[in-house]
């Protein structure tokens, strides 16, 4: 589904990703962990098509297409979703109105007819129940005055509405208490099926207690330096990122 080969990218002349390789197949959950500044959020931004980031090398193939060649909105149309670490606020724009536009723009991209108001509302009600959301949240301005938990829940609600093929969740767990993490992770679990995949970017292991990954990758200094099963996450939790740093230094000394 997603094949990243030797991806190099940076911002304002500073190289951040120094050759990422990653393969994601339908039905899989991948977790990317790593210390601050290792390039986790840069990877998410580059995949979603944020313009400030410049790709300097490598390739990304998504469902048979050259992802890097597509505009951000076309990437969304193809089924790529980014759950933002810091969801933005848009005053005066209701979540309902925002979602209706998003859903129908994506349908248009896929050559589907726009949903009418009745079908749209039915879908909204269903997905809100999934995320244990209150009705009032949808008539409020998008993310304005939402608590951290509400914002992240709203991200997963949007994911539920848009039904992406690949969901990239950029530190969706940061700033959440344990109950909110459970609701968010359970929401993602309910949306999983054999045709879609999740790439979860996180600092901490605790999200992975609920959203169990098939693969865990450690990103360090712009490269994936270690990949493994979910046990790797536990090992990291126990030993901290220092053990990766030490391993890296040893390798450097050897070479």
């Amino acid at each position, binding site marked *: 589904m997603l094949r990243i080969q030797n991806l190099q990218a940076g911002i304002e002349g500073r190289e951040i990703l120094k050759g990422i390789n990653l393969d994601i197949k339908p039905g899989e959950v991948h977790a990317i962990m790593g210390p601050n500044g290792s390039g986790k959020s840069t990877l998410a931004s580059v995949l979603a098509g944020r313009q400030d980031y410049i790709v300097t090398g490598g390739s990304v193939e998504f469902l048979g297409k050259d992802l890097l060649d597509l505009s951000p909105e076309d990437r969304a149309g193809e089924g790529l979703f980014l759950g933002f670490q810091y969801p933005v606020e848009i005053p005066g724009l209701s979540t309902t109105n925002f979602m209706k*536009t*998003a859903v129908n723009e994506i349908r248009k991209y896929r050559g589907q007819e726009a949903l009418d108001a009745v079908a749209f509302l039915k879908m909204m009600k269903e997905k809100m129940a999934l995320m244990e959301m209150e009705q009032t949240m949808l008539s409020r301005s998008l993310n304005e005055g939402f608590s951290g938990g509400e914002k992240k829940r709203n991200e997963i609600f949007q994911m539920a509405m848009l039904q992406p093929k690949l969901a990239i969740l950029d530190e969706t767990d940061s700033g959440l208490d344990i109950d909110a993490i459970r609701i968010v992770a359970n929401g993602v679990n309910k949306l999983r099926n054999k045709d879609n995949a999740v790439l979860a970017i996180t600092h901490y292991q605790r999200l992975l207690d609920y959203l169990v990954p098939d693969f865990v990758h450690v990103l360090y200094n712009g490269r994936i330096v270690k990949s493994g099963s979910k046990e790797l996450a536990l090992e990291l939790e126990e030993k901290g990122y220092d053990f990766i740093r030490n391993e890296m230094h040893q390798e450097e000394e050897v070479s």
Partner: protein
Amino acid sequence: MDEKFSSIEQTVLSDYKYGFVTDIESDEAPKGLDESTVRFISAKKNEPDWMLQWRLKAFQQWLKMKEPDWANITYPAINYQDIIYYSAPKQKVTISSLDEIDPELRRTFEKLGISLNEQKRLSGVAIDAVIDSVSIATTFKTQLAEQGIIFCSMSEAIREHPALIQKYLGSVVPATDNYFAALNAAVFSDGSFCYIPEGVRCPMELSTYFRINAENTGQFERTLIVAEPGSYVSYLEGCTAPMRDENQLHAAVVELIAQDHAEIKYSTVQNWYPGDKEGKGGIYNFVTKRGICQAHAKISWTQVETGSSITWKYPSVILKGDYSIGEFYSIAVTNNRQQADTGTKMQHLGKNTRSRIVSKGISAGFSNNSYRGLVHVSRKAHNARNFSQCDSLLLGDKCGAHTFPYIEVKNNTSVVEHEATTSKVGEDQIFYCNQRGMDTETAVALIINGFAKEVMNQLPMEFAIEAQKLLAISLEGSVG
């Protein structure tokens, strides 16, 4: 929603879709302005002598006055001798029914999306259509007359209802008020008159549609609305003009009179030709609008200003009667080289008077957008209250937003609040929308409409949709 966005796409190539010219013969006054021009206009309209005298007095006033220069706008000096002050489409002198309107004219209004055909009109809106200097047609007159409502052109009102005109014309905006009001009083050619009798709630929206067609002409219309005690009326005006390389002058006067317990809701969607991307051409829009409220009366101004190369306009309310209410809701959009200096004056004279100002300025391109507002609380206005909110939104970094609030409070039991914010449409907001499948134009339209929502909500439903489209179109290509 979908319809809205496809219409945006359609307009990508045609920046100003009302820019066509109708090829109709017109009957014009010679260029320039002196006493004979004033006499010419008055004679053309078969006016009684008192009206001519009123005009001549205003003309003498105007000669003594100076063009104001305090506004935050710059433009080359206007040559008042280079303007045609009267232009009327040539058609049969009297029309007995709407069917007899020149088909070319009728098509013009159809193109503008205005149907003059009463039978086919679905929504309950009565329209007075003014092209260049003359009112062409007023619809739904008979139905309105059954309730005693008068809705007709100003020329007709001068002939048919002289007592009302003599009593109220110039009573809120006297000819001496300002330079442009004096000019208008001398040379105004038409406009709308509306009278709602005591206790009557006008059953439909009343609307005037203004169009400047002929070249080198100025448009000087006057609107007068009188709402007798306990009555209610909602009124809307719309305006467009062809694309011309020369600047054209529009200097209108609107007067509103709300008697005890009456309510007037006045909405404007102003879309005069704004000039091209380099700032060539466009309408100079110098307008004086003011209403007076007697006890318990309410006047509410709502304006969506997207057109004109220069806008100079301050719809105001004199809160004379106790417990009267004034409101001003405004969205002013400037793009390319447009300049707007607009706002309001709320004059609290009566006790327990209240006013509310919500101004939303949106600037893009190289434009300048200023809010200028005065809240005045007089010595006797006990317990007066005002709330003002002025928000500015910037698109890009070459445009300007300015706020000039003036507050004069002479009564210490009053409460005046002022809030102001300035924000920029952020890359983050646009990227967030992009990531949800929307292109940048759509994203900007959503963000802008969110910003403007509070004012949009004040517009009558059918016009709100129109105004939303207009906002998106006006800002076409200003981001990205």
